[in-house]
């Protein structure tokens, strides 16, 4: 269980000080698929960064079970991310000088995962293992970043606009892979998006507006990636 309590976050100093998160509280159950929905500037990416331990809040707590990660030192936070968290970003952030296999191994080695090739196969890239990122399409690159994140066997997977740079067809394909792997491995998914249709794939939808949660609701039936509108 992830328990976020009364989180605040400010950017800037003096007169230009801007409150991005205004006392957010939220609970996410283990294995849940949560989508954080909001427009640009609503604070959803900052919220994701704080929840995942990439950024520290100015006040409030983020607890994973009994452990409050806001109180961890930088070294402990790194260890926490190593043991628990996987990330997928809009810009992929693959290592350009390494092949697909080596990029995935970046995640796999952290979890001593020797079966990482199975995940490469699971995202449909078994024949591209020796290719470099620049030799792949955008969709394929994002699938590499999915495989890299999952190869470290995370307990929670954070996704920041994972389909933001992809076309509709490729986006559906990537989301489909994520859903299938979520069902298989049962990790918790927290995805940030501005696309309302993607929210139909989640158990829980958290709507954000101007640094606050404006609405939380549960989908009675989760839709598959190829069933949602676009």
């Amino acid at each position, binding site marked *: 269980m992830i328990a976020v309590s009364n989180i605040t976050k400010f950017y800037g100093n003096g007169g230009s000080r801007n409150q991005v998160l205004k006392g957010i509280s939220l609970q996410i159950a283990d294995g849940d698929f949560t989508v954080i929905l909001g427009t640009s500037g609503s604070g959803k990416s900052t919220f994701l*960064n704080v929840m995942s331990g*990439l*950024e520290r809040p100015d006040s409030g707590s983020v607890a994973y079970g009994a452990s409050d990660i806001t109180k961890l030192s930088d*070294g402990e936070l*790194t*260890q*926490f*991310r*190593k*043991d628990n*968290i996987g*990330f997928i*970003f809009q810009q992929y*952030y693959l*290592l*350009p*000088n*390494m*092949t697909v296999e*080596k990029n995935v*191994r*970046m*995640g*796999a*080695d*952290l979890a001593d995962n020797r079966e990482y090739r199975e995940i490469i196969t699971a995202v449909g890239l078994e024949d591209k293992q*020796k290719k*470099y*990122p*620049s*030799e792949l399409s955008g969709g394929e690159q994002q699938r590499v970043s999915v495989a890299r994140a999952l190869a*470290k066997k995370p307990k929670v997977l954070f996704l920041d606009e994972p389909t933001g740079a992809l076309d509709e067809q490729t986006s559906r394909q990537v989301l489909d892979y994520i859903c299938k792997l979520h069902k298989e491995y049962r990790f918790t998914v927290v995805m940030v998006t501005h696309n309302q249709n993607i929210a139909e794939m989640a158990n829980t939808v958290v709507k954000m507006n101007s640094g606050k949660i404006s609405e939380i609701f549960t989908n009675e039936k989760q839709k598959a990636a190829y069933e949602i509108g676009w």
Partner: protein
Amino acid sequence: MMIGIKDAVKLIGISVIACCAVFVCTLFLSYNIDVAALKDEIATEVGMMMYQAQVSTGKVVAAVSGGCLAATSAVMLLFYIKNYIDTHGKELGILKALGYSNFKIAKHFWIFGSSVFVGCALGYMAAFLYLPSFYELQNAEHLFPEIKVQFHPILAFLLVVVPAIGFAVLAIIYACLRLKTPALDLMKEKHEHKAKLSKNETKDIPFLKELTRSTVRGRKSLVFFIAFSAFCFSAMVQMSMSMKDLSSETMAIMILTIGLILAFVTLFLSLSSVVKGNTKTIAMMRVFGYKHNDCSKAVLGGYRPFSYIGFAIGTIYQYALLKIMVTIVFADVENVPEYNFDFTACAITLGLFILTYEIAMYAYSQRIKKLPIKSVMLE
């Protein structure tokens, strides 16, 4: 155009190397020209032998030091231009897509040659200011009639103007060649890879080990600079220790100062470039949970063997150069002490080198520790 003085300022390393090269060349070539003017006044046989030896020394030192440093400056300039085009691929690609020709874009790269001009001019001025003291020391030995400092416009032209123009032209030609890459590839920041995978890539190598290898493979020019830095440190420090006996203390201090400046400037610029070029990789590793030590070792550790290779080559180089000077150049001169390899000097220099190199590595590993993850991810 996007290339400005600010970009040229980043080439301070080239300025320092050019400065050292021109300083040494001006000093010895001016001395040679001024001594040559007195050739007819040298009456004794010993004086004539000394004259021949001094002229030969001047030529060897100017050619070897000037040549090596000029070549290093050229490699460094090409490295900077390649790096500039790689990091500004998007802007350059857009210019090409808009219809600017390769030459029209490349001609603005002349500004990179200005770093050579600044370095050469400073080196020439420093040498000219130092010449009176240098001549005073030579005159004190009463080997030749009194040598006077004279201004040689040809030297100023050859050592300041010609290199500046030459390097500016080199920058334009090289930029023109690099800009032949199609506009789309420039915009995509496409990385070049060898079509054939190396044997290592087919083996089951752990990620951190592979990262170390790919970091080194990805920037081979930095391997050269780091090895060159160790080479300068090793050769110049050991040479300065031996020079004390073979030549004079002033000469030893001069060599030591130039060697240390070259070594430190090259090392720090190279390490800065390594860290800067791998910022995103380091940030991503930290996001995934790699420890700070693992990141530092993987990114910086691969260069260590090359620095020791550079040190070894520097040791051999200085021994060979001094041996040649003593046995060939000063062959006919009396009272030149015998020169043998100085194991004590080598051991002291190695100790100092290890200490200096590891302190630099530690400083840069602290810099890696302070890299802000979030700002990198939001770029």
